[in-house]
């Protein structure tokens, strides 16, 4: 007969696995059928390329009205400076896409998280798009 300690250790290990399975992303939201995943990925790659090229006008052309107001020259210069500290852009290592709905407006968005490798360090971009594929959110770290 098994000792109770082994049984409880097994329960603890199972709880730990369940905890990390949840963390690992089993609870992600599906992308709405109004979006095409490949198009969303290409649009995110394009945004990262425009940042690397320091193309402020190109970025603003993609933006929603609200984002265009937020992305002033000063803000974009800060972004370019921070990303510039990473050195030369090398490649996008990994990219994940999901959907989300704004709880207040009910508007659906596609959200992309992309890990971009640069010569010195790796940045993680979080980029969101409206159904019209307008850039609605841009974060990096």
């Amino acid at each position, binding site marked *: 007969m098994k000792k109770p*300690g082994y049984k409880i250790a097994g*329960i603890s290990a199972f*709880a730990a696995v369940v905890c990390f399975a949840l*963390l690992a*992303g089993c609870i*992600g939201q599906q992308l709405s059928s109004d979006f095409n995943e490949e198009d969303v990925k290409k649009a995110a790659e394009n945004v990262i390329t425009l940042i690397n090229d320091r193309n402020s006008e190109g970025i603003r052309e993609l933006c929603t009205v609200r984002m265009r107001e937020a992305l002033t020259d000063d803000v974009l210069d800060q972004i370019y400076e921070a990303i510039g500290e990473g050195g030369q852009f090398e490649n996008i290592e990994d990219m994940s896409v999901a959907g*989300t709905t704004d709880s207040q407006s009910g508007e659906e968005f596609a*959200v992309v998280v992309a890990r971009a490798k640069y010569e010195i360090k790796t940045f993680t971009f979080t980029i969101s798009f409206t159904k019209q594929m307008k850039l609605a959110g841009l974060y990096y770290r």
Partner: protein
Amino acid sequence: MTGDTLTEKRILWFFLGSACFIIAQPLLRLPILNYLQQSTDFLLVYTLNPLLIGIAIAFSAGVFEEGFRFLFKQFLLQPAECVFSQPVIFGLGHGIAEALMVLVPAFMVIPVSQLGLATLERVLAVILHVTLTVVVWNGFQKKQRALYLVLAITIHGLVNSLIPVLSPFPDSVILTEGALAAVVVVMVGYTYYSKKYYIPGRNSNEETRI
């Protein structure tokens, strides 16, 4: 058992407590969390569900730390029945190891005078670790091991969840530390109440059954 042997046992309990923390956190949980943070799938889910994932991360600390406390008691600190000082010293070892890991790097870059709240928070955390160890050990004294393990994980997870739950509020640091202090007061009361479950050990000679 001589007084010297008893002292050696107490030192051993302290270092086992420290080892328990080091295995549960720096050697296991933190590398797993670091690995997850390299995954865009995980970061995406975290971005979309910050509160839910924050609470899950908080509970994972409870699962690892209380789980390893349990395993240490089960396999390295037999017999199950023991003196009250055993969980207290083990919990001190666990909590002080964590405090050193958190505070030493901070002391290197920030003057000690500016770390008042952080130091207070660590003192409360050490006391909480002692009381949570008593909860796990109570299960062994009362022969309800799984129940008390789950209870300890739940308390640990709920306390850690204060951070993601309260962080959106203004003055969240004060709120979080205040709530932590309130929990610690209740847990210290429970710990004092729990003394009756242990083998009496008023002096060295009476602790020979360790």
